[in-house]
């Protein structure tokens, strides 16, 4: 199997000049941004849950501890994902993909359970629960990269057959997630496919065609009434923010009030009146950004957007310098995923995107999402390490 080194000179020169540090094969900027985001997230989750837990007579630090434990476990996963042998990862991809699809099937079986209206969970013993659709994102990232890179063989752009095969593969987890139904995650999976296809240099008409098809399907779904009522309500609330402020528009309206009232520097951590009054439902998960907006103000909120921007920038840099097409596609998939999910989540709290129930990467509370996000960071670091290794060769 021959591999291409897409842009060896540039990277290898720089890494070589750092000679003695080359063994520490981690992107320190990426790692630093992720650690800062996770740390900020812990503070925000703490602030969001503290008053609720206190008024319920529970330990006010309960969510904070669970969040930190999740981050630690996720960090462990990330280390494993980053150290995995590159070739072994490719070899294990079909297994990972198969397991993740099995998990999605299990959700639809009687093993699955419904939390907050989404039938996305499997309850495990000892009060643990897992959300297989989060891991499906990781599986799809590596799966789609494998197909497009393997078939293309690195020498030519994927042909129509390869694209069709990739789409067929992606259709399986997407269909299963759609059945839950989880519209947000389905969109994330679609964006991962689009991102990988774009960077794989597949024919442009495929990318544009898929975008067009997506638009047609979305409009059709609204017109034909395929969407559930609550999904339509969310779109109505998006199109007309002042509609039904006690119902469908409640969340977004409260979110905008919290963020808007934060002003330039915010009300101070733990000082947000809207956060302390528990006006925003799901504040520690999907609406965690509102805590930043209210308590840390424009400065803090921009910092989070900026840190996410840094993660994406480093991710794209890793993609550009990847030693092979597989690595580049993995990195592109991860970046597409993080970019889309961050934009939709923050955009939703700011009232410029409809409510889709996607958590904010690294910041929102939630075990499965934290694990999947950190595994994805591990993959980025893995690709990074691979490109350094290739450069050293």
């Amino acid at each position, binding site marked *: 199997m021959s591999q291409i080194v897409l842009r060896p000179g540039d990277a290898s020169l720089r890494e070589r000049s750092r000679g003695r540090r080359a063994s520490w094969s981690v992107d320190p900027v990426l790692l630093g941004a992720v650690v800062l985001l996770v740390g900020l997230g812990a503070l925000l989750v703490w602030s969001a849950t503290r008053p609720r837990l206190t008024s319920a007579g529970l330990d006010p630090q309960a969510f904070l501890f669970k969040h930190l434990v999740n981050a630690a476990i996720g960090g462990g996963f990330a280390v494993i994902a980053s150290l995995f042998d590159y070739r072994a990862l490719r070899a294990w991809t079909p297994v990972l993909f198969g397991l993740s699809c099995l998990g999605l099937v299990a959700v639809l079986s009687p093993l699955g359970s419904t939390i907050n209206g989404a039938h996305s969970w499997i309850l495990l013993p000892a009060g643990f629960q897992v959300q297989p659709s989060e891991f499906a994102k990781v599986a799809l990232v590596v799966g789609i990269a494998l197909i497009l890179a393997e078939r293309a063989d690195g020498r030519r752009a994927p042909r129509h057959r390869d694209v069709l095969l990739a789409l067929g593969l992606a259709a399986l987890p997407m269909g299963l997630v759609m059945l839950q139904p989880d519209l947000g995650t389905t969109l994330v999976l679609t964006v991962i496919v689009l991102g990988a296809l774009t960077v794989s240099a597949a024919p442009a008409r495929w990318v544009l065609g898929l975008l067009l098809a997506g638009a047609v399907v979305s409009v059709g779904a609204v017109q034909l009434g395929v969407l559930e009522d609550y999904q339509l309500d969310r779109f109505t609330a998006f199109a007309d923010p002042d509609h039904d402020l006690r119902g469908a528009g409640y969340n977004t309206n409260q979110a905008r009030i919290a963020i808007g009232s934060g002003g330039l520097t915010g009300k101070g951590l733990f000082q947000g009146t809207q956060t302390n009054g528990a006006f925003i439902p799901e504040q520690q998960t999907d609406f965690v950004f509102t805590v930043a*907006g209210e308590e840390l103000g424009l400065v803090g909120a921009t910092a989070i957007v900026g840190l996410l921007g840094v993660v994406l920038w480093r991710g794209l840099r890793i993609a550009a310098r990847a030693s092979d097409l597989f690595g580049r596609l993995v990195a592109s998939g991860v970046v597409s995923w993080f970019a889309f999910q961050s934009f939709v989540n923050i955009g939703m709290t700011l009232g410029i995107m409809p409510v889709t129930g996607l958590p904010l990467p690294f910041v929102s509370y939630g075990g499965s999402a934290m694990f999947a996000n950190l595994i994805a960071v591990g993959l980025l670091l893995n690709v990074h390490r691979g490109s350094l290794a290739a450069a050293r060769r």
Partner: protein
Amino acid sequence: MTGPGTPIADRSGTRLLVLRLLVVAGVLTLIGRLWFLQVVTGEDYVRAAEDNRTRTVVTAAPRGEVLDEAGRPMIANRQALVVSVNRSLLRLAPAKGDDVLDRLSPVVSLSPAQLRARITPCGERLRGGGSGRAADGCWSGSPYQSVPVASYDPHDRAALRRVLLVQENPERFPGVEAQLQAVRAYPQGTSAAHVLGYLGPIAEPEVGTAAYAGVGERALVGRSGVEQTYEQQLRGVDGGQELIVDKSGNVTGTAGTTAPVPGSSLVLSIDAQVQAVAERALEQAISGARQRPYYRGGGPNVADSGSVVVMEARTGRLLAMASYPSYDPAEFTGGISTTRYQELLDAGNGQPLLFRATQGAYAPASTFKVVSASAAVMDGQTGFDDRMACPGVFRPTGQQNFAGQGLGTVSLRQAIVRSCDTNFYQLAYDAWLRDGGLSPVPDPKDPTIAMALAYGLGARTGVDLPAESRGLVPTRAWRESYWENVKDDFCQGAENPAFSAERRAYDRDVCLDGNLFRAGQATNLAVGQGEMLVTPLQLASVYASIANGGTIHRPQVAKGLVSPDGRTVTEIAPTVNGTLPVAPDVLAALRDALRGASSEPGGTSFGTFAGSGLKVAGKTGTGEVAGKQDTSWYASFAPFDDPELVVVGLVSQGGTGSGTAAPMVRAVYEGIYGTAGRPAALPGGRPLPLPSAPVRTVGPSGAPS
């Protein structure tokens, strides 16, 4: 190995650039939006956040009282001792207040289950559904408002003792309050119920509108009568307490308190004593008519309903407005059940809520002849002393005189005094022919219709009472649009084999040219029959304008407003709607003819007023209604030499005007002037001027201080 710079690598690199651009655009979009929300519009959201976490508990402003023209209370505020439960405080009590409710149960004679049901907000039990009444077992008000569970007369000593038990043991009854509150009371009983009106809960679409600015979601507002018309003046401004709450509604502090501003008191032109006289005369006339046989035979008079209107001739102010059947406004205090409300609207019960004086429309019959005569004289067709034949039957249309009797040759004045119909048929027929008959000239004059409109008929008088009827003046335009609406039905009827041949022929006629103004319709109109409809108030306005020399006033029941502190009295001045296009000498001749009708032998109400000592001028009317007994009317003013008062009486299905309505109106005048051995309700017939000194002072709780 393919080296760098291969086409695929380039293409892939370019594609990566697309991703980069998208990421940069996304980051910039989010930061821009953040800047807009937090910096540009941040102030708005700071305010919204403030509103978000405060709740207002309303302290209702005491509603202004309603007084009659002499300052007698018509609507007062009664003190009620109300026991209420504050849910927020109750929840903080041990066991969420279950013990408290158990202890409260014997005090207010309600079971703990009933108590709990009553204080549970309706929204928590039945989302969206339910009738929204506290009596139905749930609380329709704000969850932050204390829920009243029992109400007592403060003079009831036994109740007072039990309530004191609550007040003196606050530690045993946390969250339970006993307070004096104001509710509506009606010192004159059921008198003037329709004029006064009642209160009802504000409707959801009205909340937040300009007319109801500052009125809370569950407030009671005027739903009828002056309670509705003068809602804004009577209402006052509610006070409130701003409470700081979290999302679950737990009160965490108080942000501020504003005191309520009581509403103004309303002084009516209605005189409670004249009103009582009018109501008694109306009831007695109706019960008397029911004892007598209907003059055309077939059993006694039905006399199902009626009305009396007493108006000041020079101002349009109303001294009394009676309507039968009536209802007790106190039934609406504290909310009326839907069943009872439907009963009050039900035709089978005589529709007691229907205010006959302004909402009942009837054919005016011969009382309308003053309008037809004005038209004929002003049009130059005839003079008051010109003599005309009054045959028993009017040949061109075959219509009969009243009872088919001819009166020989009479003047127009005599035609009014003795009520000749054929005379007016002739005048109307001539005018109709002049307008072209069945092939009308362009822009026909239609003198009677034009005069009816000039007198203000066919339009609302603008009285300060809600939902007034327009009545109906059948103009050619009305006839045309009415025919457009119904002709399809008649055209189908003309072809309907189930109908009789006669019915089909009639339907065919209407179908073909039902829009034509026919001779019979023109002649009918001249004697106030046919499609013409007037309300008793409209007719009173017509007679007032004749009596006062040609000024049409906007009728008014309200005379002034007294500020809550009793210091400022604001007069609600009489308003002029217009002037009659009738010469003063013609009006004088009309007044003289009306005097003759009640004081000259042969006059239609001579028998009623002969020897009464009353200087009444008036016209009888006997309106024919298809399928019903005749409508009995009497329209009058007094004294005839210097008119001050106008009295119009109506009894539906009451027989002839002279038989029922005229004696009823005489009884009203006797009560007002105190003749026939009765005490005078309004000595000299002159109402009191509006006092400039305080009428009464209203305390902060709405109680007279």
